[in-house]
């Protein structure tokens, strides 16, 4: 790791480490603006209702209340594709949907004012199942989404955006198959990624054309990029605060942003909207629900000849960008399974449950987890070792895929068989794997089983980034990149890359706040694009700055720029290191140098994560316990081993691996209430329940990146649920096709109940 580099590949303290461990890191709830009001939301008790009337008089008259908004007087800003999510509406579509907004001097006052709002509802029939919702005669949620089925496609990712996966000839494919299996499998336990910090935004209007947002976002610039068209292109300045976890959910932050901005506009003062944990559970973002009716054909050797099916995607009452999630998911599936004949038809359906949104896994995890049980069935029929199957079928040089924009890409990245083999070796797969439906160990009522899952994404080079690097004569550098910090250490990684290019000590390189006023364009820290996409822009900017610096130094030293090098704030001739000057000698003291960098989308690479799981099942109680996880990847070049390891550990959290064991959102299907909406009944992994976790991080250089690196953070959880389910099935010798495998399901599969 990092043998040839000064910073890259070494574990270095995060730039914000001291702030975090001393409590000085400033999160959105720690921020107070002068004159700031508190915004609160009245939430619907019904899954679907028309608001017949709201009497706001008492709330408006309540001392300390500065603004009350309902659908009657809220701004008409809209989000979603097509636009279907207003700031407030006369129809509420899930339990917890916003009915009215109040801004007041204190939180308590705002809360009390909510109780004074008198609302008359007309209840409407509700629907919670995606297929029921898509049938004729189902309750209709949105005028703009007839039949509850979203139109396919998403213009901003291209006119030909992947709307379905059709290639080759499936009938021919099936005719070539030795084994054909068909099943309905689902990954629809709609878990909550549930970052510890609830969502929140502070909005303040400088004037009617200038809005400033302080945001707890994973991708601060996205708040601007998404909101600006919705808000009629007023100028939005976004300042990203330290973000207390996101896992995809806190990217565009449209709803807290719209609520805060609308209230701030109405009250003429800054307004903070910060969700409570209860709101976070009920009214923010859940994973997409995913269900497939699919058919797969394979040859005995594991060659997949055809895959055909319908993919239902439940977006909940509203969707952020499910069409993109579907496009990416369809793309990722081709990475998982190389198959010449496809016909996979997605249907995106809205239902009266909480909204879905961007969640780590972004469509791919949802499709992978729904497909894996089906693939398991054919592997079992063919008696194939799943490791061999994955190795045979995962994307490799020489193959290709249609990506989200509908364009074919020839793959030109790493061959991941090494990572698969290394993972299997460390896990001891060959010893533990006893064949399908066979436990590895039987110890009385307890049985241990093993499973494996795999996933990859070609998102590491998605979308555009720009960065500047400013050099100052005191031999310091500042990276201008609009990247906020939500846990991936990306701001530090970018500093490391710039420091590496400039050969400066790390503490000489800083990065600007994630402020859209200051920084060049940035798409946002989504997918696994930080290392390659954002990193490449920063590297290019640093190289540009370095070039300018050396050009300035050349005449001073009388050496050609290309014969010069720089280290620790000195510029010297490569062939005569004694001939050197300090930066300020080259630059003068009244100058800075700014280098520019830009990254253009590159979809020709992908990453890969393999997860091996060992699970012990108590066949008398039905409890499944995760004993051991081996996560294996090849990231080209590690930027920071501890940060990367943390990201791999993260596969347990953020609605990942544990969605196969106990993590789920329990919806009361009579009323649409989320029942387990508290941190006792929503199950998350505690320190007392940690499995053994081993991370394998191989480094096969990726030539596209200066430091040969690609990101893998986003996909870490995706292969986990399928692996764990497979392990449980092998332990008990029975098949469970839905997540999570809670004791009731396991006991049922075992025929005990």
């Amino acid at each position: 790791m990092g043998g040839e580099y000064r910073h890259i590949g070494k574990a270095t303290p995060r730039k914000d480490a001291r702030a975090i461990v001393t409590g000085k890191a400033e999160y959105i709830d720690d921020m107070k603006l002068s004159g700031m009001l508190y915004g609160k939301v009245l939430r619907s008790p019904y899954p679907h209702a028309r608001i017949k009337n709201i009497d706001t008089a008492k709330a408006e008259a309540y001392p300390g209340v500065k603004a009350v908004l309902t659908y009657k007087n809220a701004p008409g800003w809209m989000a979603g594709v097509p636009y279907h999510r207003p700031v407030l509406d006369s129809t509420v579509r899930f339990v917890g949907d916003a009915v009215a907004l109040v801004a007041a001097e204190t939180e308590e006052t705002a809360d009390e004012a909510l109780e004074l709002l008198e609302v008359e509802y007309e209840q409407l029939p509700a629907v919670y199942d995606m297929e029921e919702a898509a049938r004729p005669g189902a309750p209709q949620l949105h005028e703009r989404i007839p039949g509850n089925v979203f139109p396919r496609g998403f213009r901003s990712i291209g006119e030909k955006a992947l709307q379905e996966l059709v290639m080759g000839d499936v009938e021919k494919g099936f005719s070539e198959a030795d084994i054909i299996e068909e099943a309905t499998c689902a990954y629809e336990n709609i878990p909550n990624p549930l970052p510890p910090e609830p969502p929140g935004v502070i909005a303040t209007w400088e004037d009617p054309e200038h809005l400033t947002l302080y945001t707890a976002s994973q991708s601060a610039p996205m708040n601007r990029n998404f909101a600006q068209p919705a808000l009629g292109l007023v100028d939005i300045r976004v300042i990203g605060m330290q973000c207390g976890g996101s896992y995809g959910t806190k990217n565009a932050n449209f709803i807290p942003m719209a609520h805060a901005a609308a209230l701030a506009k109405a009250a003429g003062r800054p307004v903070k909207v910060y969700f409570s944990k209860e709101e976070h559970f009920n009214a923010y973002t859940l994973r997409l629900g995913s269900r497939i009716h699919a058919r797969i054909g394979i040859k005995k050797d594991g060659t997949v000849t055809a895959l055909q099916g319908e993919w239902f995607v439940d977006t909940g009452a509203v969707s952020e960008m499910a069409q993109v999630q579907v496009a990416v998911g369809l793309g990722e599936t081709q990475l998982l399974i190389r198959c010449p004949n496809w016909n996979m038809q997605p249907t995106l359906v809205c239902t009266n449950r909480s909204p879905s949104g961007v969640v780590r896994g972004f469509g791919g995890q949802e499709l992978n987890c729904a497909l894996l049980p089906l693939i398991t069935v054919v592997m079992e029929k063919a008696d194939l070792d799943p490791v061999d199957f994955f190795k045979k079928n995962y994307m490799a040089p020489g193959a290709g895929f249609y990506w989200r924009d509908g364009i074919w890409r020839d793959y030109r990245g790493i061959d991941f068989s090494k990572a698969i083999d290394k993972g299997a070796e460390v896990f001891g797969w060959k010893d533990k794997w006893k064949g399908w439906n066979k436990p590895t160990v039987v110890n009385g009522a307890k049985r241990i089983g093993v499973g494996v899952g795999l996933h990859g994404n070609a998102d590491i080079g998605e979308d555009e980034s720009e960065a500047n690097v400013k050099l100052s004569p005191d031999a310091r550098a500042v990276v201008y990149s609009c990247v906020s910090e939500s846990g991936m250490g990306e701001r530090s990684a970018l500093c490391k890359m710039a420091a590496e290019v400039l050969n400066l000590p790390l503490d000489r390189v800083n990065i600007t706040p994630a402020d859209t006023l200051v920084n060049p364009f940035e798409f946002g820290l989504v997918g696994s694009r930080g290392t390659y996409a954002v990193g490449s822009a920063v590297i290019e900017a640093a190289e540009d700055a370095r070039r300018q610096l050396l050009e300035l130094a050349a005449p001073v030293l009388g050496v050609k720029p290309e014969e010069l090098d720089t280290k620790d704030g000195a510029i010297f001739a490569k062939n005569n290191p004694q001939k050197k000057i300090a930066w300020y000698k080259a630059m003068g003291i009244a100058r800075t140098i700014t280098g520019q960098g830009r990254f253009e989308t590159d979809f020709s690479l992908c990453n890969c994560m393999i997860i091996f799981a060992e699970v012990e099942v108590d066949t008398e109680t039905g409890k499944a316990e995760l004993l051991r996880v081996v996560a294996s990847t090849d990231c080209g070049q590690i930027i920071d081993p501890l940060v990367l390891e943390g990201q791999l550990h993260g596969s347990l959290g953020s609605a990942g691996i544990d969605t196969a064991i106990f993590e789920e959102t329990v919806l009361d299907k009579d009323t649409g209430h989320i029942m387990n909406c508290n941190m006792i009944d929503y199950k998350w992994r505690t320190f007392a329940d940690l499995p053994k976790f081993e991370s394998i991080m191989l480094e096969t250089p990726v030539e596209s990146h200066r430091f040969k690196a690609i990101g893998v953070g986003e996909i870490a959880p995706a292969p986990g649920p399928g692996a764990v389910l497979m392990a449980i099935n092998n332990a008990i010798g029975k098949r469970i096709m839905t997540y999570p495998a809670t004791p009731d399901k396991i006991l049922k599969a075992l025929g005990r109940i």
Partner: protein
Amino acid sequence: MKTDRDKGKASRGVATAEKNISLTVNGKPYELMVGKDVNPDHTLAYTLRETLGYTGTKIACDHGSCGACTVLMDGEAVLSCTMLTVECDGKKITTIEGLENRETGGLHPLQQAFIDNTAFQCGFCTPGIIMSAKALLDKNPSPTEEDIKQELAGHYCRCVSHYLVVKAILSLAEKGR
């Protein structure tokens, strides 16, 4: 509002304890007047953050189920969101802001260990975890891995920094041995 409600009715039955609440936070004494600085329904977490400005203590679930608000009270790790300030009279509180050496500004060894091990990702749960770890090490300078896991069992960390947190604390525990 609260004064309106409190007005008039004398409290029933029991002598009221309405008086100043004395708190020592990170060695600094505070006198908080009930009804003015502190209302009966204020939690300690609220008082620390909103009244006294110790925002290093985080509130996440606000229901005692996630550990983010953990502070030390007379040396014990407790949940400040699940405790009324009016019931903390005379208590000594230590928050994350109180760990640095006041004279030198140097970090507490635990803080340094967390930095050295990158024992956090988003960092939101970190102050609470560090406070629990501090209470544990104060009582038991050389806890085992199991001791650490049990002690931290009430801390929610969704990024899953658990492994590196345990490693960071163990690095000090080994020094304690």
